[in-house]
């Protein structure tokens, strides 16, 4: 059994002196720890986090925008007391922004400063060694996560935004927890970090990336879970109001809208209603505050018509 244990195997490969202890004992513990950090998980989420730790594999989290993918990584980092290192992906992100970059300016300075009269080949050799040392390197999030000695959680956010080529950069880290730098050699992780990747599914990720990750789909929560989320995140809200809010949002999500309300928008709406001092939602309140949940005029009109049975929203 122990020979097969993926953590042991990885620790040996990385050359760690001891196998890092497991962070969570069971999925239930994950659930409990996350709940302490105001993140209400469900069975599937807790199980996948547990597995990710147990198998030392990255997690690819997918789902509609605003369902708490990023928040999940933050909550996990908080619950294990680790530092969160975040790489926000965008189109055009490249090696020098994601992994590492040589600090040209500092290297130039070093070359100019250290040029004594009549420098020979020997000194040039030293210099060359010198300017390709870690001192002249700017570490970017991926490398930082690998080389950190304190506990870290690496979050690669919206990985679907980068090009296919950049995605390939991450493969070495995701499967081997190491980075190869031509001038320096291979840098291995000093511990096994937890890695999360999030995607809004705007494009198909490569098979290679998917294969290396555990997959977690975070959809819209059930009414019960959404109610509990509202209760835990919005102070001073009554459970009746939370229930009603969760029901309204569920109904909205069944309508064919351009952009269905996300959990974070639900929370905004709940906070607004609390500030307004409402204890239940009437037709008028709903019509007046629907724009917090929905971001398109056509959606607001359609929702008003469907839910409140009138064609124009009240001004």
């Amino acid at each position, binding site marked *: 059994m122990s020979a097969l244990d993926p953590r042991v195997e990885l620790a040996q490969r990385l050359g760690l002196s001891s196998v890092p202890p497991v962070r969570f004992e069971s999925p239930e513990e994950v659930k409990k720890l996350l709940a302490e950090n105001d993140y209400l998980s469900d*069975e599937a989420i807790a199980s996948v986090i547990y597995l990710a730790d147990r198998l030392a594999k990255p997690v690819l989290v997918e789902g509609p925008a605003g369902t708490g993918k990023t928040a999940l990584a933050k909550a996990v980092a908080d619950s294990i007391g680790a530092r969160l290192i975040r790489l926000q992906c965008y189109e055009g992100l490249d090696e020098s922004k994601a992994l590492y970059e040589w600090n040209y300016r500092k290297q130039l300075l070093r070359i100019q400063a250290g040029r004594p009269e009549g420098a020979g080949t020997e000194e040039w050799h030293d210099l060359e060694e010198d300017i390709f040392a870690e001192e002249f390197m700017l570490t970017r999030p991926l490398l930082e996560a690998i080389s950190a000695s304190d506990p870290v959680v690496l979050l690669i956010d919206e990985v679907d935004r980068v090009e296919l080529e950049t995605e390939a950069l991450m493969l070495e880290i995701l499967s081997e927890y190491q980075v190869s730098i031509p001038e320096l050699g291979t840098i291995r992780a000093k511990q096994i970090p937890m890695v999360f990747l999030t995607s809004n599914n705007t494009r198909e990720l490569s098979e290679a990336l998917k294969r290396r990750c555990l997959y977690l789909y975070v959809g819209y929560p059930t009414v019960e879970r959404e109610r509990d989320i509202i209760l835990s995140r919005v102070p001073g809200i009554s459970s009746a109001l939370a229930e009603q809010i969760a029901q309204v949002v569920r109904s909205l999500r069944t309508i064919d809208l351009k952009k269905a309300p996300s959990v974070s928008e639900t929370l905004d709406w709940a906070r607004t209603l609390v500030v307004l001092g409402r204890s239940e939602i009437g037709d008028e309140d709903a019509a007046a505050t629907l724009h917090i949940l929905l971001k398109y005029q056509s959606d607001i009109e359609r929702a008003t018509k469907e839910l409140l049975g009138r064609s124009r929203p009240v001004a």
Partner: protein
Amino acid sequence: MLNLLGDFIGELRAAGIPVSMSEHVDAARAVEVINLGDRELLRATLGATLVKDGDHLPVFNTAFDVYFSIRSWESAEALLGDELDTDQREREGAAGAEGHGPSRGEGAGSTSMSAQELAELLFRALRDGDPDAMRQGASEAVSRYAGMEPGRPVGGTYYLYRTLRNLELESLEQRLLAGTMGANPDELGQRLARDEVTARIEHLKSEIEREIRERLVEDRGSEALAKSVRKPLPEDLDVMHANREEMAQLERALRPLSRKLAVRLARKRRRRRRGPVDLRHTVRRSLSTGGVPLDLRFKPPRPAKPEIFVIADVSGSVASFARFTLHLVHAISSQFSKVRSFVFVDGLDEVTRLFEGVEDPADAVARINAEADVIAFDGHSDYGRALVTFHDRYARDLTKRSTVLILGDARNNYHQAHAEVLADLHYRAKAVYWLNPEPTSYWNSGDSIVAQYAPYCDRVIECRTLRQLEAFVGELA
């Protein structure tokens, strides 16, 4: 366990979910480290390691329920085995016995309750949203109404239909609504109450479906049943033969599909070729490296975009296919310099204006049926006449940059083909493609005259599923 897992993965692959060798290994490792007594944990574990696409989850869940059904759970546990300690097993066993004890003996189940009692039980379960009672009610209902015959090779849809018909869910729904409506005078409250009732009834339906499936597994074994309940992934559904539910699935799948395609094409176009060096930008960048232009900057490329003419048959048999294609082409219209759409049955009408200024192509597609004037005579497809009309009115707009897409099954109802018109269109345009939603083996049978048009098309393509359609449209741009 490894055998069972292997069979299960075989089923996933058969259903179209790609599972690689290393994912298989991951799953096998993952089940080593979890508590196998927890069925939902096993589901999450296998889901996380084997399925890497949210759209595949429904298919995965169906297969999981068949292979690891609650009923066969105890026997599965025996297979899974030794890691399970005994008290765990006892607890599971107890929970199992409690959960579906009443449904155990079918004879006992059906006689213990009268129809009224069952209706009452379901009513109370639905009103209170009590999951245990619902499960029990579902099991009773199946024993009573489904009339399941052992050994019949069916997927259970028929049993589901029979059970639901006998339960008279509509009247239950009415009763529930009557109970809740009074309390909520305003519109919103009523709507919420309605949705709540609908959700609970849906839950009951899924319980009944699950119950039927469990019994079928017991009767026929996982492997046989998996084959009968296997559903294709949305992108592999045959567009021409989709039923209403599958149609809804297709509609849902189309929007993300077209969005992804648009993103992919935009990227491809941007990357395909670099433009000339942007000197100004390069010099500016070089300042930080002491005037040495280390980092070259390029002007964005300006590749020519093709012009698309879509001519679609919208008569009954192929209408849905035409709608999907129009939707997809217009969803990525930013990738083309111009898209013009024409629809026909035996008359032809331009519908480009319906797509103008519309944010969502689906809206425009929905309006085609009502607003396009496509019937000139008897309302049977006439490809020859449609092509002649197109040639008369629009042929002069075709240039060497235009691509013509013809969508239809080429079933001409024995009218004249007028293939010479297509020959002229082919001569004027850059390319002519014919997308046929029928399987290749049906071409040229009956009144299908693909062969007469084929010589004047650059390609005739079988296009039956969203996957094929997406692949083709992607190539086009």
